[in-house]
């Protein structure tokens, strides 16, 4: 492309076409929950290309999924680096400086951003599909040729600290930090994605390491190119071949430490500087995402049985007794075993122990008594409809696929796991609860204002 800025004609035309009929069928039993045709190919350097034509006329969601997140931060002092590096990816190259990169996206009227999770980092652009080649040009360039000054690197560290600070007044971030730190002893899930504050503050001194980080992880075999929208798979694949072919494979190999089994309950008290209702956060070690083993899907079903608005426990604590005003829980999909988490905001400080007791009792009931088949059917219906209804824009479909591409590298994983949900039996739920929702695998964090009485770490009650 001679000059990607000369794309004034790239006006997106949001005319509205006919939705693929498959979408409406998605929630019915036996059908694929992700109903769109997925085109896959890969380059010789290992870069995977996934294209999903979607009814969003004139518009394409262009994602690059880097299968590296805070899970990969296995060296001491480097927590939060995957996220910090995500920020650096917006600092430009020799060909397209930061300002030029931004100007091109501005010209397109594009939405562009990125996010980092425990397991992956995703860069996403929503833009006119008529500008596809421009997008491929600037994206391939930064993934292959990122270049920033020490000065830029150091200033970006301030933005990351700012992000930490904006989150710091929210109790959920403090709870999340505390539960990971306590529940994990070896695995890198011990730290949150944004990292330990001490490491965030030290980031300006890590310029050299940032070059190493880029060299290790921003490699084609560790990435997936994902385009959803008004896009011709053949055209995109041809563009990808042209622009991403020079990207060299990496050599870095690493292993994340396995977390040894937890052998006894852990309890942590977090003092909160501002007056607040107390929060209760409970985590149980739980299995990694799988498209074949039934345990993780069974726990997802268990989470619905316990914490959805229709769940007896929710109705008891939130609606009838009104002891709690927020209650939710579940195990989010992770590449390695993570946590089945439960969070509750309790109305009265003196009722925290009671609420903990009620939650634990509900989990125990799941271990002892097989769940009613009719309730299980409602959960499965809810999960399928909920997923299907969420696929309402190209961006939403891309976000969903990106998560599954991270987990397995295969977009079909979403259909496989929903097929597993369909197969979950009352016995599967009971077995998973017996195996994972046990006291020895539990970490309990309470957060409260010191004036409401010390958060007594040993005060769990029934």
């Amino acid at each position, binding site marked *: 492309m001679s000059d990607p800025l000369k794309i004034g004609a790239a006006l997106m035309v949001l005319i*509205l*076409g006919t*939705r693929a009929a498959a979408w*409406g069928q998605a*929630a019915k039993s036996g059908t694929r929950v992700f109903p769109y045709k997925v085109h896959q190919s890969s380059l010789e350097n290992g870069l995977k290309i996934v294209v999903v034509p979607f009814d969003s*006329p004139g518009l394409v969601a262009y994602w690059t999924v880097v299968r590296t997140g*805070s899970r990969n931060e296995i060296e001491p002092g480097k927590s*939060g680096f995957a996220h910090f590096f*995500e*920020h650096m990816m917006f600092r430009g190259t020799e060909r397209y400086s930061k300002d030029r990169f931004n*100007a091109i996206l*501005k*010209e397109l*009227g594009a*939405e*562009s*951003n990125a*996010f*980092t*999770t425990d397991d992956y980092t995703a860069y996403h652009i*929503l833009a*006119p599909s008529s500008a596809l080649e421009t997008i491929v040009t600037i994206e391939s360039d930064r993934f292959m040729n990122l270049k920033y000054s020490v*000065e830029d690197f*150091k*200033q*970006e560290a*301030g*933005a990351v600290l*700012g*992000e930490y600070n*904006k989150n*710091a*007044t*929210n109790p*959920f971030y403090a*709870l999340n930090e505390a539960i990971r730190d306590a529940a994990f002893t070896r695995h890198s899930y011990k730290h*949150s994605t*944004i990292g330990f504050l001490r490491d965030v503050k030290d980031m*300006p001194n890590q310029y050299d390491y940032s070059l190493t980080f880029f060299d290790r992880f921003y490699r084609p075999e560790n990435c997936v190119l994902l385009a959803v929208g008004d896009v011709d798979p053949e055209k995109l694949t041809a563009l990808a071949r042209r622009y991403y072919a020079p990207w060299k494979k990496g050599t870095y190999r690493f292993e994340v430490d396995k977390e040894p089994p937890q052998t006894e309950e852990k309890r942590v008290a977090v003092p909160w500087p*501002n*007056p607040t*209702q107390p929060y209760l956060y409970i985590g149980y070690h739980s299995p990694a995402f799988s498209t074949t083993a039934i345990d993780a899907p069974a726990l997802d079903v268990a989470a619905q049985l316990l914490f959805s608005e229709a769940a007896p426990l929710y*109705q008891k604590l*939130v*609606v009838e007794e009104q002891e709690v005003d*927020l209650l*939710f829980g579940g195990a*989010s999909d992770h590449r390695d075993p993570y946590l089945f*988490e439960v969070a509750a*905001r309790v109305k009265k400080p003196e009722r925290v122990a009671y609420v903990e007791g009620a939650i634990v009792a509900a989990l125990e009931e799941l271990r002892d008594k097989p769940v009613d088949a009719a309730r299980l*059917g409602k959960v499965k219906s*809810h*999960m*399928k*409809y909920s997923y299907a*209804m*969420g696929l*309402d824009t*190209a*961006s939403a479909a891309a976000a969903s696929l990106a998560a599954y591409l991270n987990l397995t590298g295969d977009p079909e994983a979403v259909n496989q796991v929903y097929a597993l949900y369909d197969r979950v039996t009352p016995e599967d739920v009971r077995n998973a609860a017996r195996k994972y929702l046990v006291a020895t695998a539990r970490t309990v964090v309470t957060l409260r204002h010191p004036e409401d009485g010390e958060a007594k770490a040993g005060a769990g009650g029934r």
Partner: protein
Amino acid sequence: MRAASSPVMAALALAFLARPACAGSAPQETTMKETPQAAAAGSPRTCLLPSQSSPLVTFRIQFGAGSIDDPPGKEGLNALTALTIGEGGTKELTYREVTDRLYPMAASIGAQPDREVTTFVGEVHRDHLKEFYRLLRDVLLAPRFDPADFNRSRDLLLAQIQTTLRSNDDERLGKEALNLVMYAGQPYGHPDVGTVQGLKSITLEEARAYYRQRYRRGNVLVGAAGGYPPGLIETLQKDLAALPEGTPEPAKLPAPPPIEGMEILLVDKPAPATAISIGSPIKITRADKDFYALMVAGSYLGEHRTFNGRLMNIMRADRGLNYGDYAYIENFVQEGGSTFPLPNIPRRQQHFSIWIRPVPPANAPFALRQAVRELQRVVEHGLTKEEFESSRRFLLNYSRLWAQNLSRRLGYLMDSRFYGTALFLDRVQEELPRLTVEEVNAAVTKHLNARNLKVAIVTAQAAALRDLLLSGAPTPITYQSPTTREDLLKEDKEIEAYPLPINKETIRVVPARDLFER
């Protein structure tokens, strides 16, 4: 750019008012124009976007009732009534029974009370439309007003003030505090969720009476979008005829109090960083031509959550001051995890604002000076032709992303009804190409100023910051890593001594725990 830990992120969405997740789909038609519906005399007004190809159906049922209608001493009556209805039972069914029925459908009914209107949003897959419709109808037309639903809703609203706003979300606190000072003594002046004493004083009978008074046939706008059958709207209109007749007058809105110089409210609380919101009321809305001119200038200064804006580039990218800095020319609430504006929060009076996300406390005065100085520069010199052209081009495309699904399109369409203008997104396409840089700069001069501003600052050690600001002493930036860029260092010297026109009479410090009490 953000760090996401999924379970926590999901939790954050729940930490404030339950906003129903918006889902929808693209309609079959090639335009966003609504389908005209012949309205029988006395029938509720409608806003319709049918699309037979969509498997989803969205309802947005909007009542002309907002927190501006809260009687003095009963602040929160509108929100509490809406929540008791939207998250409560029906005459036939308890809340639990309603929830049990909605659950297998993954359908939702949610209340979105705001300053001027209250919107009930329902989303369902068309497989369940019939059953869902009956529930939605009964929730709205035969609300249970169960004391348990009422108490639970009140606790939730109180928690939003006492726990969330005062303690656990400094960014939102800053914005709400700005609203408080900008509209002191005016119906916009209290949070849409109410005040602590107001909420505590409301009785169930008062909520029931408010429902009877404000939820009227002439006061409802029925929005529907998606794959609903043709007869549904007729049924809906017939059912809504059960509402009492009449069109309650909208509450009178006096002009906001005049601002003399920079009037600062410092909100004191333990906090690791300092959140700053700056603003001033403006006299235009989406109905006015000048709004579209000002839109270009606002976007240039700081389009929400983008990396284009001037403030974002000079404050975050160049100096690492914080996570983000943006500017707005109307009340703005981000919809969920998207970057786009939440529909159905229209206001007859609007304001300009700058949002400076938390900065390290030592840099707060510098950040305030830099933002105001930048605003002054724009007011004084305007945009260059190039800045104007690039911001206009950006907005012409970017604004099209604001309504990617039917539910959001419907919300925008209803907002346009409120403002009495053509569909906002269409008007952007009409007005922007006609604009000149001179018109934009004239609108900036006419509607914005950097002298008379309200400022809300949420910070620890607020009294010390007040004294520092009053001293007028230079407040240099402390870089996390010193910069070597000569251009920045030179400009920093000017910024650190930039004279803020602080009104020394009106500056005050308030503990966070005292805000929104009554």
